[in-house]
């Protein structure tokens, strides 16, 4: 996703001289070399100084620019939280805060590099919008949208590298609308972000079991598509939420709220990270498994 983000941002920057990229000693790969060579005045590296990264992006936006602030998710959202809240949220500025390597992708770097609660934290800020693409192609769509929108701040939660393409046959991406990657009638899996790859594997297995399965990318986590999720709850016998996020304030919590509000009658199973820091190491899958999230464990529970 990092590469498609930088490619999309470069393309937008060639068309719009108001696009700036402010980074904190971490830069996206891929086309960023072209960006920094062609538009050095629009690439600002603040160094290891994330509070000023957000503040500088805010200042640029106050003068009409369309800035992106980019670093690893923990440092783009948690470290400068009050700047994100006051400078971006309170002033409602069109700045995109890119949280790269979000969730627990940095699986061997320990809890300091995990964002298990970023959706809850960003989502609690008034005016904040949250987009969490599920694959590199969706990341392109989301990045283009962020570069053109003027609504207010966005938290763009992206992965790192090597995510498979899951959206070849999906309907077009639209901000604020859930996106069916597959349509079925029995079971609907709601998910967002990098873990959609695991959700797709669960969908494959359930399909092998003879079930008709929908797979949905809830890429816009704020404002969440209440109507779309309500329809999914009403039109399937079983709904499964799979998320790489704490139980508070994420997709599971939202879906349960919507289910209650709409008196949904379907079966609802949710799989979130636990409300606990992760002190073990290994692969991304190993860490998810430690919190009860694997294809095998999900299948065992949803049977």
């Amino acid at each position: 996703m990092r590469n498609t983000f930088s490619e999309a941002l470069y393309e937008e920057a060639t068309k719009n001289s108001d696009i700036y990229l402010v980074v904190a000693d971490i830069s996206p790969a891929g086309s960023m070399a072209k960006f920094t060579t062609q538009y050095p005045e629009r690439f600002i590296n603040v160094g290891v100084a994330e509070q000023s990264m957000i503040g500088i992006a805010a200042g640029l936006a106050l003068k009409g620019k369309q800035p992106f602030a980019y670093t690893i998710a923990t440092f783009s959202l948690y470290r400068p939280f009050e700047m994100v809240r006051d400078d971006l949220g309170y002033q409602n500025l069109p700045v995109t805060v890119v949280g790269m390597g979000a969730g627990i992708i940095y699986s061997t770097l320990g809890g300091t590099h995990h964002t298990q609660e970023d959706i809850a934290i960003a989502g609690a800020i008034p005016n904040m919008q949250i987009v969490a693409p599920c694959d590199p192609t969706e990341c392109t769509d989301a990045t283009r949208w962020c570069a053109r929108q003027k609504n207010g701040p966005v938290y763009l939660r992206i992965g790192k590298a090597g995510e498979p393409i899951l959206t070849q046959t999906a309907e077009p991406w639209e901000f604020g609308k859930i996106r069916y990657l597959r349509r079925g009638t029995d079971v609907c899996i709601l998910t967002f972000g990098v873990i959609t790859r695991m959700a797709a594997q669960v969908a494959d297995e359930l399909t092998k079991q003879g079930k008709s399965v929908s797979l949905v990318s809830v890429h816009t986590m704020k404002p969440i598509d209440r109507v779309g999720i309500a329809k999914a709850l009403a039109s399937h016998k079983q709904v499964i939420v799979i998320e790489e996020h704490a139980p508070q304030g994420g997709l599971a919590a939202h879906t349960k709220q919507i289910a209650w509000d709409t008196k949904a009658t379907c079966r609802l199973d949710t799989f979130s990270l636990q409300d606990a820091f992760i002190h073990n190491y290994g692969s991304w899958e190993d860490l998810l498994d430690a919190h009860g999230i694997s294809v095998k464990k999900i299948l065992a529970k949803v049977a």
Partner: protein
Amino acid sequence: MHLRNSKFDPAIAKARATKYRRRILDMSQHVSALHIAGAYSCTELVDAIYNEFMRPDPGGGKSPDTFLISKGHGCMIQYVILEDHGILSKKDLDEYCTPQGILGTHPDYGNPGIEASTGSLGHGLSMVVGMALAERGSKRDGVIYTVLSDGEVQEGSTWEAILMASSLKLGNIVAFIDNNDFQSLGRTSETHPSFYPLTDKFVAFGWETVEVDGHDPKAIYEAVKNRSGTRPFMVVAKTTKGKGVSYMENVPMWHYRSPNKAEYAQAVAELEAQT
């Protein structure tokens, strides 16, 4: 440097400062509390920014220059000057901190003449750096002016911005430190002696830095007029918290309190004696 006023008149500057202090004093009688002493300590600084430095737009629109008050709690002085310039109305100021009004104790972006929401310390200077970068990127010659409190220079985020402003050689930044030596729990020079000397720290970080008497309009004017414009410019302004009213000067409780009727009368008499 291109400034609003090419010729400085000390008598006019002094009269304006007294007028603004008096207007703030009158506003204080409508509310139970306001940051009066912190506004009085930077009265001459903010007056100079608006009335000596920021250039008018030839077309009658917004100035090509920008003022962001980083010490947001000092915004009373900004409000009264914006009223004086016809950007805020008397009604706006009369309705300060009331349900029907638009103005509160800290400046709110979106209100007339307010370029950023501040109030939480340590945010302003990074936004100033971003604004200055935007001016440079747009090939405009706008200067970004700001006033910081001395307390907020203790914020790590302020130093992040100080580092970036000079690294980027943003000569279109003019910053003032309202060095009144007071913060909530005491005199800064006593609670944080290592904070001083302030000027050396900015020099070490690559800023063109001068020290002035922050209540001497001529010194403020000359300092800014003579800056090189090749690097960010810092004016360390020695000020007195509550300046202009004897019982407020250097008395911490006036950080956030309105004078009662007797105190108001005394303050009016003292200010009138200064004109």
